[in-house]
């Protein structure tokens, strides 16, 4: 319980309105180091908007986000990436014309040190100069990262390695999702946000992805997961948060949440039974 008092990520009263619609409504959430929390809820519940607020792609109208004790509300996404927050996107946002290698290398961008000297004002000009001259330090760093990218891609078995030089637009949908996760891992994140990593995947592919996420959790990575496949949610999550119409309607261990009448109503409108079977089959 000590960890609960000093969570890695902490949301307080986080709210975002679009016109008359409150997409995220006073959400509180604490995520401890090494914990995996899943956020579930029907489409339009505000899950992705919540991710956007945490990663700086959108600004909240009210409430705070803190990360490792620091208030990070409203910081730019590039700052948050440098702080160690990585995410994947619901619809899959790979860089279509970049090779798999380059896509994943972009993930490691915030870790480039030799070629991005932390000098104020003239830093960018030095970066341009170093990119053109490429002294040994810069070359070594790039080489090291390339090796690391291969190691990350190897986690996906033979899915991505043989396609390492292919442009991302030529990949299958499932492979694009894998590239996104590889890109996020290349950042060496302290906090990883996964937005429906298995969307559009068949059962075999879903099982592979589930095994990978379990592995990442076992390695101690702190993960916030949006997922519709309840089977996977139940197996992986330390806790589950259910959102509906922007509000948190339930929170707790998976088994407790899946029988919560409010949750069943949110999914099916009325207290019908059999929700879990239908959802996990979906």
């Amino acid at each position, binding site marked *: 319980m000590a960890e609960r008092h000093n969570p890695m990520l902490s949301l307080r009263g986080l709210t975002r309105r679009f016109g008359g619609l409150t997409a995220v409504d006073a959400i509180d959430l604490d995520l401890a180091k090494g914990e995996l929390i899943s956020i579930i809820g029907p489409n339009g519940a505000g899950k992705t908007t919540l991710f956007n607020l945490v*990663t*700086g*792609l959108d600004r909240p109208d009210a409430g705070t986000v803190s990360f490792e004790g620091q208030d990070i509300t409203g910081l*730019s*996404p*590039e700052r948050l*990436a*440098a702080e160690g927050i*990585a*995410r994947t*996107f619901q*619809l899959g*946002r*790979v*860089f*279509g*014309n*970049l090779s798999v290698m*380059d*896509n994943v*290398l*972009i*993930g490691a*961008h*915030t870790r*480039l040190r030799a*070629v991005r000297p932390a000098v104020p004002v003239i830093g*960018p*000009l030095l*970066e*341009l100069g170093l*990119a*053109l001259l*490429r002294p040994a330090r810069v070359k070594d760093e*790039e080489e090291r990262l390339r090796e690391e990218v291969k190691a990350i891609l190897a986690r996906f078995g033979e899915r991505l390695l043989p396609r390492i030089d292919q*442009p991302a*637009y*030529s990949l299958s949908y499932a492979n694009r999702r894998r590239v996104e996760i590889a*890109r996020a891992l290349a*950042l060496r994140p302290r906090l990883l946000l996964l937005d429906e990593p298995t969307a559009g995947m068949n059962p075999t592919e879903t099982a592979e992805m589930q095994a990978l996420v379990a592995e990442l959790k076992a390695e101690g990575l702190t993960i916030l997961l949006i997922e519709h496949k309840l089977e996977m949610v139940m197996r992986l999550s330390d806790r589950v948060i259910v959102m509906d119409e922007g509000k948190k309607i339930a929170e707790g261990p998976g088994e407790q949440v899946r029988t919560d009448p409010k949750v069943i109503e949110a999914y099916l409108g009325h207290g019908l039974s059999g929700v879990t079977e239908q959802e996990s089959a979906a």
Partner: protein
Amino acid sequence: MSSWLDYTINGLIVGNVYALVAVGLALIFGVSRLINFAQGSIYLVGAYIGWVAVVQLHTPLPLTIIVVAAAAAAVGLIIERFGLRPLQNSVRIAPLLATIGISFVLDQLVMLTFSPNPRALPSQLPDVRFQLGGGTIGPLDLLIAGVGITSALLLFVFLRYSKLGWAVRAASQDRDAAMQMGVDVNRVNQAVFGIAAALGGVSGMLVGMYYNQIDTAMSLQATLKGVVAEVVGGAGNVPGAVIGSLLLGLVESYGVAVFGTSYRNLFAFLLLVVVLVLRPNGLFVSARQAPPEPLTGTFIAPSRPVRIPRWALAVAAAGFAVLPFFPVSFYVLQTLINAWLLGMLALSLTLVAGTIGQVSLGHAALLAIGAYTSALLSLTSAVPVGLAIIGGGLMSAALGTLLISPSFRLRGHYVSIATLAIGEIVSLVILNWESVTRGPIGISGIPPLSLFGYDLISPSSVYWFSLAVMLVLALLQGRLLTSHLGRSFRAIRDDDIAARAYGLSLNRYKSLAFIFGGFAAGVSGGIAAHLYSYINHETFNTQQSILALTVVILGGLGNVVGAIVGSVALVGLPEVFRIAAEYRILIYGIVLLLLVRFRPQGLLGTI
């Protein structure tokens, strides 16, 4: 006091004219998220059809208006059907480029048919002035106001009460949903282009009558003013476009009253840049709405670039290097020198437009900054020419990046508008800042190229010099593309949101791309200044910007070798086929259109 009322009336009348153009742009943007750069060309066509009707057919005024509206609408329908509809499922950049190409083709066709000389367009109305308060107002003013208000009312009734009008509004709110509900989007597009073109054509005719003069330079100005008014009002917002137009008319009119006529356009473009920076969604749209650009989708055509082996490139370079040893004519060398200078500009533009995805339409401004800097350094400060050219490149890199930086947070078509406006601002500042740039007189007696004290006068030495500079710039750019910056630039182009989420600062990397590209363009302008020995504010114009863009598309966006191949092709082929100068721009426009339609990835593929 009375003169102020006059300026107000004049501002509102001119604003009314802008509104006719801007409303059309807003309608089109609303339905297809496209800024129609050909709108000014339709305005031009309208003015010339008006001239034919009035001067040759002697039609009475009401008939003239109907003829112009119908003919312009027909042009609009043709543009929609053959220029844009085939590109519906194409990449985002394609329709934008197509309207630019269409605009050049239409302008050139008008110019070839009617000659570039200005013509008088008589107003057909009695020349009397009525007293109104302290100012005066003429029948033509009233006609323009009447046409403006009547069209606004007709449009309102159409959008509000007709079935097709409903479909237009539905499609502009949510195109996909409208399609699923059975709205025929093609018919909506047709309606919108027809209406926009009719309004634009009538507007051109009225302006011709107002100033009693029409010429082919009207087109670009009208597009620019219409776009300014539309963006000020909020892109796609029809009432906003009307208010934006009146505001623009007033700002210009008061600006002219205080500072003089030559500042008119400067005010328009400054207004645009201020609005784009402070409220990119326009004055009447809440700033927190999502940007109207689509967030996903491929910006450029995906393709696998053609790989040319290094030895082949080296052989080609060596072949061009030894060319002057063979008995080739001065004419061939001169043509290739032009190709190398254009090649440097194309390298710059292919980096900015292709690699990082900022389609700049004002790239000639970078040439101008480099040329003026280099010319003035060598003339007034006696800096050696070689150093002065480098100074020109550095100034272009610094000033160009500074000027464009407010637009770094814009996306898609807005970047093109901002760069177009900034290009115009640069040329207007050159025109008006007489103490430094010598204003409209230009700079003459610029010393010839020289290096380490040796003058480069002979054609071969100029040829080698420009080829060498271009090759060095190309090699540097090739090296840049293989560095982490190359992939960072391309990532920002492909998806700027995902790029930011992985720590790529848009300001930082767009600045670096413009610094590198600005240097190449500035060096090209600097060399050109010393070759021409005379430059003025019109030496580096929008035509060059569009030519460079065509070269870049031809070679393949972002493709270094492609930029050079494209330059040689577009400078060389017209010479080989001895195409007369006045047809060349027409051909560039047609080439651009054909490429966008049939080979959007260019000859060598995008990188």
